[in-house]
């Protein structure tokens, strides 16, 4: 099953909407509660990343009885050094973003911790593609 959500950069009022929708879908599909929790935490973090750093983005969700695949594609500045961004505590979030409770510098490592597989590619000046996979069996 496929679902697509658009994400607007800089608009924190709606940040988390797509992740909430994904959560509702997974609940209806009777996915294991622990898996829902990990998926939604990771998805929420990734969604907020787009809002915080990119101009716009799209979330593609693909669910089969075997896997949940969520792909975050954004148009934005990209990540110059992915290895650095993967380090615990690294954050480029502005102080304004931090005040809203987002961006504690645990973005990518935290996402990786919660998912079964994570794949990230980025092109500076163009954008980032983040793919998350959860195995259901």
């Amino acid at each position, binding site marked *: *099953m496929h679902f697509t959500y658009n994400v607007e950069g800089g608009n924190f009022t709606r940040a*988390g909407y797509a*992740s*909430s929708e994904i*959560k*509702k*879908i997974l*609940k*209806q*599909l*009777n*996915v294991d*509660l*622990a898996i*829902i*929790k990990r998926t*939604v*935490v990771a998805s*929420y*973090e990734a969604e907020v990343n787009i809002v915080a750093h990119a101009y716009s983005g799209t979330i593609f969700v693909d*669910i089969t*009885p075997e896997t949940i695949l969520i792909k975050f594609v954004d148009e934005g500045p990209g990540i110059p050094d992915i290895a650095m961004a993967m380090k615990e505590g690294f954050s480029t979030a502005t102080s304004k973003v931090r005040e809203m409770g987002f961006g*504690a510098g645990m973005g990518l490592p*935290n996402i990786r911790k*919660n998912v079964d597989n994570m794949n990230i590619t980025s092109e500076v000046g163009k954008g980032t593609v983040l793919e998350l996979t959860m195995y*259901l069996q």
Partner: protein
Amino acid sequence: MAEKYFHHALKFRREVCIGCSHCMNVCPTQAIRIHSGKAELTDNRCVDCGKCYMACPVGAIIVEQDDFSQIFMYRHRIALIPGVLLGQFPGKVTNMQIYSVLLDMGFTEVEEVEKGTGILRMAMDSYLQENHHLKPLISSFCPAIVRLIQVRFPSLTENIMLLKAPLDVTATYIRKKYAEMGVDPKEVGIYYITPCAAKIAAVKSPVGDKFSQIDGVINMDVIFNKVYTAMKQGFAGKNQCSLPVSAPLKPFQQLWTLTEGEASLFPGRSLAIDEISNVIEFLEKLENEETCDINFLELRACDQSCAGGILASGNRFFTVERLRKTAIETAAKEDTKVVEASNDILNHTQHLLQNMAVSKVLPRAMDKLDEDMKMAMLKMQMVREIMKTLPYVDCGLCGAPTCRALAQDIVQGKAKITNCIFIQKKYEQKNWLNPQETMDILKQVWGDDKFTDPDNTKFVTL
């Protein structure tokens, strides 16, 4: 699948129901549908919040209570009264006057529900410290909220504090007290005067506890009427009471059941949220985040917490104001003279703390479309297809509260797409249904009565 999880205190009286669907439209868990002109409840979705009871214009929904005469099966008949009862009355009513009315009714002792909150507070304090890793911890106080979390937010069940509610702590104390007096437990009957339906349901089928300490419940409006009548008659002969009236509870105990009653007591960040839609909105958000800076959540299903209980007769805002005022007065007295009477419950602190725990609260997810994920996916696909044809108006004329609810009912085989009045009109245009057939469908949902004209009325032309 059809296993019944919960006992419900709310009963729908078919013979009184006029099928107006007011209840269906206010139900926060979408547990109500209309069939044959009558409201019908899906048991496992209902959390006993009582929104439907408040919305019903004809009193078709009632709150079940025990036959009052049952109390006489016991030699010792104890009435457990909630603090909000005292805040119901416009004039000054003393504890003693209320006790005297209860005595007249046949009770032999009266105890305040919040008496156990002092010891509960200690237990909560240490629970919060010991279970820091589970934050935010959610109070187990409101039974409607506990059930809401079970059905709508199952992943948060582990955050619910596994401690007794004040009612059960105080009841445990009473049982211990009588046991120490050498009284046969079978001779002790504890009756709870309840401000809401959820508490009744919790007494009849406790979540996380094997059995309840309470023998029966009496709705608070019944007692309100008795006291109010006595008040209007000037409490003739009721200003004396042979029952010992204990010293007033501490101010924090008096305010426990109001909003902020618990949240204001604990160190660290706490939040108090009342009214079930507010709670749902907040829990939706909470579920998305892994980390949360809040240590403690006090969540109550009713606006103004128990002061807004569905069996409360007084205006909830006045009730809150009166109780706060009384608490301030008590606090002032505490300053001037030491009130240390009737602290018998403190003698049982150890026993109560040892019996404070309840077992794990289990998730009972009700959102799933099917147990089997492949089947659930198929059904979800069907829901999406059906939603493309429905109007998104949520008019409720199909007998379901929203278009999405109808779509889900259809895939579960509980409704037909032609229940939708927009679809009916479209089908009429295409000659797939004739007016008689669409009328028959409407009658299946709303009953025949709404479509028959009384014999002697003439059509009024405007």
